[in-house]
Structures are given as C-alpha cells and as structure tokens.
C-alpha cells in the first residue's frame, strides 16, 4: 500500500507540474481574462504582480504545492472563490453522474455479453455486436441531443436540463441525471460488452466449465457461478480506467444538460487562464483516476483467488 501511495504522489507531482507548464504555454493572457482588454498597462502590471504571474514557473508551482499540501488550493483568479469550495460544489455532481452512467453501462453490457458469448457467431450474437458497434460509433453529443429530443421534449418524461440535488429528493435527483447518464453510458456499454464477451468465450472453453457442464449444472448456474468471476478481470480493469477518465471527461454532457459539474468548471478555467482553478481540477481528476485504478487492482484479487496467491508468493 505504501508503494501505491508513493506512486500516487509521483503521479500527482508529474501531472500537476505538467499542467502548470502547459497552461502557461496556452495563448491568451490571464490578466486580460481577469481585467478585460481595456485595462491600462499600469493596472495590468499591478495585477500580474498580485497574481505572481511574472514569477518563475517553478516558484509559482512550489508556492501552489505549499498551499495544496495544507488543503489550500488557492483562490480562483476569476471568481475569487476558494478553489476547494468551488470543487466541493461540483465534484459530487460529476461523481454521481459518472457512477450512475457506469451502473447503467454495466447493467446493459453484462447481459449483452453473456447472450453473445453463449452462442458466438449466432444471429443474436451478430445482432448484438452490430448494435454495440453502432453505440460505439455514435458521438455522445448526438446521443444526448436525441435523448433530450425524444424523452424530454416529445414525451416530457424528464427535464431537458438542470440538476436536482439529492437533498431535494432521491427520485428527483436520479431523474435529473438519468438522461445524461444514459448518454454517457451508451459508448461504454459497447466497450464493456465486447471485452466481457471475449473473456467469457475464452472461459467457456476452460476445463472447469466442461466439468461443471458434465455435472449437469444449468447454463445460468455455469455463467453466474463459474464463468463470470474469472471473466470479469478485463471488465473491471477497463471500468476502473473508464471511471477515472470520465471524472474529467464529462464536459460535453455537462454542457448539453447544463449540469454544474467538474467538466464545465475545468473548461471555464482553461478558457479563462484560471491557473488556480485548473490546478485544483487537475488534482481532483488525477487523484480520482489513480484511486479508482488502485481499487480496480485490489478487486482483481477479490475476483480471482489465483491473483491473490500469486501476490502472496511474490512477497
């Protein structure tokens, strides 16, 4: 675990340092974003001094790290809101969105994968594969716009935009997130189903499955009891990576559905050269990504005892 923590720290330093340098290379000017283009040269110089924008990059980064280790992520240049507070207002929305989308993706992908793997090459398998390919090929924003047009505008079952906090009722909260989650989930459904199907087909060819069949176990029992666990390692790895990646990758859906999440916050920060806000967002995304991958790693051992024993032997 301590090795993992060290790895997390190393990744955090590398990513935040890289993002600090990359943002400084972007065209445009922080002071223009803060003061507008009509500010005088004197005021611009004063602002640059106040924001330490003329300090060497390593010094600015070191100053930021000094604050970050005490939980102070600084103040947004643009909104003057503490970055930690702003992130706190948004991270819950994004996490809930991503979690719900993953649950939907898994709920749809697992049955599709099992049905396809049981009869590889059958018409059902081919139909499911074609459907998955279509899901994969359709851009998320088009899915989002179509979902809004059908389920919100035409049928009126959901609100077109907006987020209802969980404190205003769980049902209303889930209802406000269902369409955006579905829009995010469809692409993942295809990926998850294809990975799991491939692993299941390989597992079905293993001796212990033939043994279970010979004992007269039902197909359902064979799938659920014997085949699913060893076939899930690829899926869990992919889901861990996807979950982590999506924490910072929901901007399109958040924009279309007007959700106050981390994605919109990050894009606003980039567009306005708001280093402090951007750095805070990068930290949250990096920690989220690394932690979720560690969780996926740990789950491998839970799913497959052989991995646990290999790790024990290695120690």
């Amino acid at each position, binding site marked *: 675990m301590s090795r993992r923590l060290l790895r997390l720290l190393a990744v955090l330093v590398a990513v935040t340092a890289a993002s600090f340098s990359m943002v400084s290379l*972007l*065209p*445009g*000017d922080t002071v*223009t*974003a*803060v*003061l*507008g*283009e*009509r*500010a*005088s040269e004197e*005021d*611009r110089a*004063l*602002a640059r001094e106040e924001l330490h924008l003329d300090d060497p990059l390593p010094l600015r980064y070191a100053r930021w790290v000094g604050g970050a280790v005490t939980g102070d992520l600084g103040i947004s240049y*643009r*909104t*003057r*809101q503490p970055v930690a507070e*702003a992130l706190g*207002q*948004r991270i819950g929305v994004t996490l809930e969105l991503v979690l719900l989308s993953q649950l939907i993706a898994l709920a749809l992908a697992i049955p599709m994968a099992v049905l396809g793997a049981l009869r590889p090459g059958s018409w059902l398998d081919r139909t499911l594969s074609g459907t998955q390919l279509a899901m994969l090929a359709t*851009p998320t*924003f*088009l899915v989002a*716009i179509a979902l*809004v*047009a059908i389920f*919100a*505008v035409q049928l*009126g079952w959901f*609100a*077109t*935009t*907006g*987020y209802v906090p969980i404190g205003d009722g769980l049902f209303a909260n889930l209802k406000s997130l269902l369409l955006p989650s579905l829009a995010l989930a469809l692409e993942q459904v295809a990926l998850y189903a294809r990975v799991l199907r491939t692993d299941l087909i390989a597992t079905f060819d293993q001796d212990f499955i033939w043994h279970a069949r010979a004992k007269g176990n039902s197909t359902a029992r064979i799938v659920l009891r014997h085949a699913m666990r060893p076939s899930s390692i690829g899926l869990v790895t992919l889901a861990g990576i996807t979950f982590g990646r999506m924490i910072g990758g929901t*901007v*399109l859906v*958040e*924009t*279309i*559905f*007007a*959700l*106050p*999440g981390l994605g*919109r*916050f990050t*894009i*606003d920060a*980039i*567009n*306005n*050269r708001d280093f402090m806000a951007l750095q805070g967002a990068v930290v949250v995304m990096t920690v989220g990504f690394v932690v979720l991958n560690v969780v996926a790693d740990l789950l491998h051992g839970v799913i497959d005892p052989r991995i646990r024993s290999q790790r024990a032997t290695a120690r």
Partner: protein
Amino acid sequence: MMTRSSRQRRAAVALALAAGMIAASCGGNDPDAVATTAPAVTTAAPDTTAAPDPGTDTTAVVETTAPATTEAPAPQPVAGGSITVGLIGESTGFNPTVDAWADSGHVVAHAIFDSLAAYDASGKPVPYLAESITPNADSTAWTIVLRPGITFHNGEPLNAEAVRANFQAILDSAQFKDQLALVSTMTAVDDLTLEVAMSAPWGTFMNVLTGETGAQAGYMAAPAMLADPNGGRNPIGTGPFVFQEWVPDSQLTVTRNDSYWQTPAWLDSVTFTPIPDSTSRKAAFDAGDIQLYTTGSTKDIGEYLAQQEAGTTNVTLGSASSPDMVLFNTAVAPLDDVRVRRALAMAIDVNRLYEYLEGVGVKEAMHGPYADDSFWFAESNYPDFDPEGATALIDEYVAEKGAVEFEFAGNQDPFLVSYQELFQAMWADIGVSANIVSRAQSENISAVLSGAHQVILWGGIGGGDPDKDYQYFHSGTGLNFSGYTSPTIDAAMEQGRALGDPEARKEQYAIVQQELGEQMPYIFTGTNRLSAIAAGNLLGIDAFTLPDGTPGQPVTGAIYHLKDAWLAQ
C-alpha cells in the same frame, strides 16, 4: 418535411455546437450568435456589445410582433407564479463594481439592482432610480438628485453617500474605472444630492448610468455589500427582486421585493439557470422547462414568430445591437490600400450570407456602423454590392502592386468556417485570395490586440449610441483595432462625447460615418436583433415601465427586465 439542405444545415449546426461547447461553456457568449448571427459577439470583448440605439423605434417593432389584440381588451396583470429563465452563461459573481457581466449577468442584475438611469422607449437615457440627473451649461458638472425613501434590500438607505461609494468602487476598479474616467470629484451636497465634477465636458454621462453593458457604473449596490469581500455572492440592491440563493452553474433564485419603491413585481419568484448550449436552451424552452430566454438565431426567431400567431409564444424583438462585421487591419498590406478594402466590401452579396444564416427577412443590410433606421444613421459613400466595380479596383491594384492575398481569421466553429468560405468564394470571384485561419477565440483576441491580424470576423462595434465606439474609432485609446485613424474622426468623436444635444451630436457622428464609408476600415454585413422568447402565458416582457408610467426600452441586446412580467392564469 425536412429537406436535404435543411438536414445538412442542421447537421452542420449540431457539429458546430459540439465544437463550440468549449467556448460556450465559458459563459457569457451566445452560442446562438456563434452559430447563426453574430460571429462578432464571439470574438469581441464582453463589454463592447451594443448600447441602446436612440434612433430605434422599439415600440413599433414590438407592435409588429405582438399577438393580435385589436378586438379584445388588454389583459390586466395579476400577481403570483414563478418562472425559470434560461441564461446564455454564468457570471463570475454579482457585484456590479467587480464582476464584468455579459448579457446574462445584466438580466440577473436588472432583477436585483436598479440603475440611476434607464433608456426610454426612444432610446434616450432618463433618470430612473435618480429623480433627476442634470448637467451644467458645458456638461463639466452633473447633479444627481435621488428619490426620497428608497432603501436597499438590507434596509440601508439609498442616499448620496451610497451613490458615491458605488462610484468610488468603480473608480477603484482596474477593469471598470474607464467608465467614469472623466469624473474628478464627487460632493454630497445633502442626503439625496451628489454633485459630480468632470475633468472635461461630458455630455453623455447619463449613458454610463443606465446599467447596461459597458455601463455598470449605473447599478446601485448596498454599501454593506460593496464592503463585503463576498458581496458578489450575496448581492443586495434596491431592485424588484431580492436575492435568495446562488449555486454557480446551476441556478440563482430571487423573490419579489414587496417593499419595492415602485409597484412591486408581479411574479413571486424567478429562477435563473445558465444553459450554455443553444440547442439545449431551445429544447428546454420547447419542453416548458424554462419560460423565457433570448436568442440571436434568426431561424429560431422566425419559428417563434410563426408560433406567436397561435398564441403559444411571445416574441419581443430587441433594439439593434452590434452588427455582423469584418475588421481590416489597415496598417498592413494589402489592406493598407483603400481600393482593396472598398473592393472587398463591394464583392459581398449580403443576401447570400443571410440565406446561409437563415436570416432572410430578419437581417437587414448595413451601410455603416448604425442601422439605416437608427437615429444616428447618416448617408455616406459606403459601397453597394458591385462585383464588376470591385474587380476593376482589384485589377488596378494588382497592376501596381501585385496579387491580393491575406489571412481571413475566424474561430473554430465549423458553421462559422463555412460562413467564412462564402466570403472567400465571393472574394475569389474578384481575383482575391483569402486564406481562412481558424483559431480559438482567445487567440483571435490576442492577435487583434497585438495587431497581428489582417482580416477577421469581428463585432462589438456600432449598433448603439456612437459614443460607445469612441474607443474603437478614436486614435488615442489603444483599442482602434482597424488601425485607421484621422484627426477628423478624433475631433468628431470628442465633440460627440462633449455635446449634450442629440441633434448636435448626430452631426458629429455623421462626419465619422462619412469618413468610414469612404475609407472602409470595416465591412458591416447585417443587423443583429436579439429577441426575448417567452411562453404564451408569460406577458409583460415587452413592457418595461419607467417610474413616471411611460414606456422604457424593454429588450436591449440580450438584456431584458422582469419587473413588469406576469403570468396569465
């Protein structure tokens, strides 16, 4: 049935929207404008959109679009009900002396704050929160007399000291102090009277007190709010609604101010929700999730005007805002030659542009920075569409100096890139080679600020009171992006600013327009009128009433008032 071209156009819009998300999500800029009408707005500074146009007959516009009510008596407003308003973008905060607002911010601000002055229906600034605002003979001193008995939402009185505190906060702000640049001293004569001395004659001082874009100095915030570092998160004004709660990027809620100094608002509460994506904003309105929003999309405006006939929608066309335009850098070849600039203008068939923008019947041709029906419009030698004449001018230039080739910049929105390709094709027809360059909005602004541009889709110039163009036309501001300067224009802009009489000012601005029409540092390609789209039962958006009961200007750019809005039962 959707035609093939219509489908293609919709697909293009969808693609443009996807590509435009990033710009849209930053708030404040209107993706509608990006997609269809005002490329300008996307690249212009946020504080440069139009001030109201004194010459625009807004009342007439509203009458032409209002539901037919000739037979039935006018419905009487009733109190009660709540609405949700879809905004184009989120604001950084709601302190008028700190946060630079795009139109969305002003919509919220008009609910919470009042401004010292406001525009009447003819577009003339008149006292609003103030009882009177009067200049001395040469406009070097102004006296602001406040109405008695007005208090802020926290109980503080609106008095001369409060106005001085607001002005001082503006003067202390690096980004706003130029709004009151000529103010030299402020003296509270008594509790309700503030005398403001100017360092030079300033006939248009009242314009900056109207609380519009570029005129935030007019909003009056409670002194306690100004002193609070978090005041922008808890705004306190004298306005018709009282701030309740703000969750950034999600919603801001206000409730009726029952102690309002005028007739209290009719609506119980209003929730403002930023929906940066224009497709989503329209979908939210069509689904009934929001009851009011603004759009610059000529296609959508046309659609809703048709629905208005059935009484399901109310459309209020706004006054003309900054037109669509192309900006030349006259300091670099070949744009330093007036023949080239004139030829490029003469090559443009604006009807082809309007067809592409689906703005036929909504957009109008321009012959200068101010619309033909504007009070400020003056005839000039601005050229008409004349491809043969343009070709002759280019041939003459080519024979002398060689081929005409330049960079034509715009943003990365595919819809706009195709829009640029129309220009490119028309310029190619006269023998000119325009190389389209697509860059992020911030890069375009940086390029223009540093003079690294050649030809670019631009905006924020023209459309309103010409004094707001002082910074762009005068030589000494650092913001004359075209690089075209002349002592004649400088003198006329200075006179226009110093004079108080509109007719005398108009004469000065005619001089400016005649020189611009001759020298062509810009091509103005079409009018922009943003519209407030309201649900069929939401009335009163077209009726912003001034304290004396006369009509004010209801919609300016994408800014409107909710004081007189009400829900029909």
